[in-house]
């Protein structure tokens, strides 16, 4: 049986050519850079989406609270709605989302009775007057990440003394 070891004759020949491993770590470092960059892009994108969602929700809540308060206090239904729209727009403009004014998707008036919101009810009683506001914004992806549209909704009702945030029992995830 032939033993697997070097003999003197091997040493007289040049050693078998081994691929150079010089620059090995540098190649690995350069190769891993795109992965690290992708990780940064992922972290930043998720963070911005999360922040956009929080800010958008806050903007929708402030607008819904303002609208419900003004409309609920008003003795005149139509005039109350007109004044409420002014307050709603003030609140949307005041609360920026990632430095931009959010886009209004829908502004719905309605009646909130027994935990359920019904939109476009003709002249609801003052303590049922509710505003449901849906806003959206486009979050621009950084470092090559895709753009996303974030959407948020808030529902507020006038309870006789002030506006309160609430949710629709039939559609809780949307409000």
């Amino acid at each position, binding site marked *: 049986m032939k033993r697997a070891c070097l003999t003197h004759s091997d*040493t007289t020949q040049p050693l078998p050519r081994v691929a150079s*491993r010089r620059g090995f770590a540098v190649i690995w470092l350069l190769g891993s850079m795109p992965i690290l960059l992708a990780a940064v892009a992922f972290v*930043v994108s998720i963070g*911005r989406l999360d922040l956009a969602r929080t800010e958008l929700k806050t903007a929708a809540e*402030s607008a819904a609270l303002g609208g419900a308060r003004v409309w609920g206090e008003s003795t005149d239904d139509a005039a109350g709605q007109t004044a409420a729209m002014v307050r709603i727009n003030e609140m949307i403009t005041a609360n920026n989302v990632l430095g931009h004014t959010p886009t209004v998707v829908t502004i719905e008036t309605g009646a909130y009775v027994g935990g359920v919101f019904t939109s476009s009810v003709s002249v609801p009683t003052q303590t049922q007057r509710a505003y449901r506001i849906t806003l959206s914004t486009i979050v621009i992806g950084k470092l090559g990440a895709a753009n996303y549209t974030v959407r948020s909704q808030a529902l507020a009702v006038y309870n006789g003394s002030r506006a309160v945030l609430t949710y629709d029992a039939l559609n809780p995830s949307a409000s």
Partner: protein
Amino acid sequence: MKVAVTHVARRLRRRNGAITIEMILTSPILVISIIGIFEMGNLVASTNQVALSARNGALVASMLGTSSDVGAAVNDTLLQSGITTAGVSVTTASAGTGVTVTVNVPLQNTCPDFLTTYGFSISGKTVIATVTMPLNP
């Protein structure tokens, strides 16, 4: 034969040394990058929490106006996510039909300053969140 083995071993040892030196030179870049990603993750998470605290403070301010309860609501929200409240400033300003709450949190309260040894310090930097709510007393 002994000569040959020594020759090969020496050659291999020489290569291992080169690789080790390369690793020593390049690993700080890798470590700084990974810690940087970690810090950035911390930063974006804490920015979100600061925004949430301003929202909670503004909700209280919309009902109670300028009150110490506003600061308490802000601090409670920050503490929930482990952000310390030392040096946090909360300002409440009523203007017209709304009330605006501004929360200013030192970045050092939100995450450890890992990269200060490498010249990237978060010391002195702040996270600011501003929320306006309608007056709703």
